[in-house]
């Protein structure tokens, strides 16, 4: 599949986000949480990009910045070629119609005192869409996500977890977006229901050419859904590639460790265990050198002091590791 440059819908360059820590009697800034140190990636139209990392890797913060729920400390976001990093007012409202986010817990994202119908129609009213046609449109959305008319009159607590997540997806689609940020969309669902929701998302993408950023810690889900993947560690991207290549030919020791740590539901698969010791570093100290250095089994002196440069190791496969640079 040959893609042209102008197919890129979302582009993120060197995104940084530091959260200030306040302390003392005067509540002065006493330090920072270095949540995101460097996130850079692009997503093509109609493509799914997986953003993978463990807790504290900064992946959720990146998602929140992308829908402008947080302001980045540094870096740029381009949407359809135009810089949306600092947009405000009506421009921002327009952007929000294009980019929607779906969170992990569907119960927390729905107003418990509103029926699904009211939740969906409210969104259309805010954006002045489908005047007079709101109800019919809500009905169409329900069908799109595999729910029926009766569900429109239910309150969130009257739906099961899977149905609730479908309702949240329906509401996100109400503004006719192009770009959906899926932040752990199935982490709170059971396996059998997770498969239903993942298939729904894939089906919607095929039909309507949505662009997805899938934020998750679940490598199996990423392999199933996304075409390309970015691995983040401690606020920094360490490897990115087409998903298939990443799973077969991971170059970064962290990616390798991650892949070998996932329990495989097949007792016949004998894995060569590659356990890494230790835990991710404290996010309140800025990273000097490679963020993975203190857990890496192949660590060298240079890793501790200097950030490894970006190396191209294949078609769209980039990695940041001194081992690769020095090979």
């Amino acid at each position: 599949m040959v893609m042209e440059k102008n197919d890129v819908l979302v582009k993120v360059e060197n995104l940084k986000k530091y959260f200030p820590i306040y302390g003392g009697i005067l509540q002065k800034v006493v330090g920072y949480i270095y949540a995101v140190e460097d996130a850079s990636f692009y997503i093509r139209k109609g493509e799914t990009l997986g953003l993978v990392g463990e807790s504290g890797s900064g992946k959720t913060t990146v998602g929140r910045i992308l829908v402008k729920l947080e302001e980045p400390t540094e870096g740029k976001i381009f949407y359809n070629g135009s810089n949306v990093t600092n947009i405000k007012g009506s421009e921002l409202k327009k952007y929000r119609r294009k980019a929607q986010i779906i969170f992990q817990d569907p119960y927390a994202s729905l107003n418990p005192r509103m029926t699904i119908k009211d939740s969906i129609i409210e969104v259309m009213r805010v954006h002045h869409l489908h005047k007079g046609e709101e109800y019919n449109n809500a009905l169409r959305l329900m069908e799109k996500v595999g729910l029926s008319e009766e569900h429109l009159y239910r309150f969130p607590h009257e739906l099961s977890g899977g149905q609730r997540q479908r309702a949240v997806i329906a509401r996100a689609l109400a503004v006719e977006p192009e770009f959906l940020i899926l932040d752990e969309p199935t982490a709170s669902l059971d396996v059998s229901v997770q498969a239903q929701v993942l298939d729904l998302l894939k089906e919607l993408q095929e039909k309507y050419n949505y662009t997805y950023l899938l934020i998750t810690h679940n490598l199996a889900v990423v392999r199933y859904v996304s075409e390309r993947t970015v691995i983040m560690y401690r606020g920094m991207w360490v490897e990115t590639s087409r998903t298939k290549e990443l799973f077969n030919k991971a170059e970064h020791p962290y990616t390798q460790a991650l892949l070998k740590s996932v329990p495989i539901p097949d007792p016949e698969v004998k894995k060569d265990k590659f356990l890494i010791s230790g835990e991710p570093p404290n996010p309140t100290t800025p990273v000097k050198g490679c963020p993975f250095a203190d857990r890496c089994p192949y660590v060298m002196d240079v890793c501790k002091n200097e950030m490894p440069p970006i190396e191209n190791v294949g078609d769209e496969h980039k990695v940041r590791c001194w081992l690769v640079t020095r090979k």
Partner: protein
Amino acid sequence: MSEKVLEVKNLRVEFYTYRGIVKALNGVNLDLNKGEILGLAGETGSGKSVTGLSILRLLPQNARVVEGEIIFKGRDLLKIPEKEYNLLRGKEINAIFQDPHTYLNPVFTIGEQFRDILLSKKDSENNSSKVDDKKIEEIMVSALKDVKMPAVDRVLKMYPHELSGGMKQRVMLAIAFSLQPSLIIADEPTTALDVTIQAQVLEIMKELQRKYNTSIILITHDLGVIAETCQKVAVMYAGRIVEYGKVSDVFKNPLHPYTKGLMEALPRADVDVKVKSIPGTVPDLVSPPSGCAFHPRCPYAMEICKRQAPKPSYVKERVVECHLYS
């Protein structure tokens, strides 16, 4: 050949709620041999945690065991007086839960609460003897070394919030194994942890289990964890065990349509698979479906499935509750 540590017979548990009576367990039968790890798999509401809590006798107030026996080393745990059970719990049977944060007291140091636990169990063993402080110190240090805790002396003086999730769960493991119980109920012990940390914790658990020949019931929704950790697996659905057997058999050739469905619904990190979801949702246990509880979602449902609950069928070394096999 092997000695039976635990035998659960026809266990039925009900919860009394404002919505009505929730039939959480509808006749659970389980065997556990010495030194064996049994995985208890199932989705939310399948009754896997309730089974664990019943064995520990830690069910909430609104729950009641309606029927059944839990035989542990020849005695029915349900008939032992509370006082006596308190001595058993911790020494003979112990537990590890999902969220170590809720099970460690935030206002005491690790050392203080660990010592308290050991003291309470020690006293019971021999009321007259004065507690040997040095001995307790030794047990604590060796237990923490067992779980590969770095800087043990410092950890003993720390408060739970000073430790990371993985470290806290190691403390829980250390406490659970410190008195070398015969049985440990581990309820989603690694669910809250990152995969790289999960791998560390599971490795330590397996190592200690081998060292002390402990029997473990590992409750988890993660079939991957079961495949890598357990010898046997019991798959639960709507308060019953629908399939029970060796991990190698069940994963290779699942017999029950629900087990099959679960395996097919699972995306995998190691190979590309076509995922197939199970239609519908888990039943409401206030009014479970008639006959086999899985029949509304089952692709092989027959007439009899709607009317009659299947009896356990024995296929080789496996137990399956499905009309397809009776």
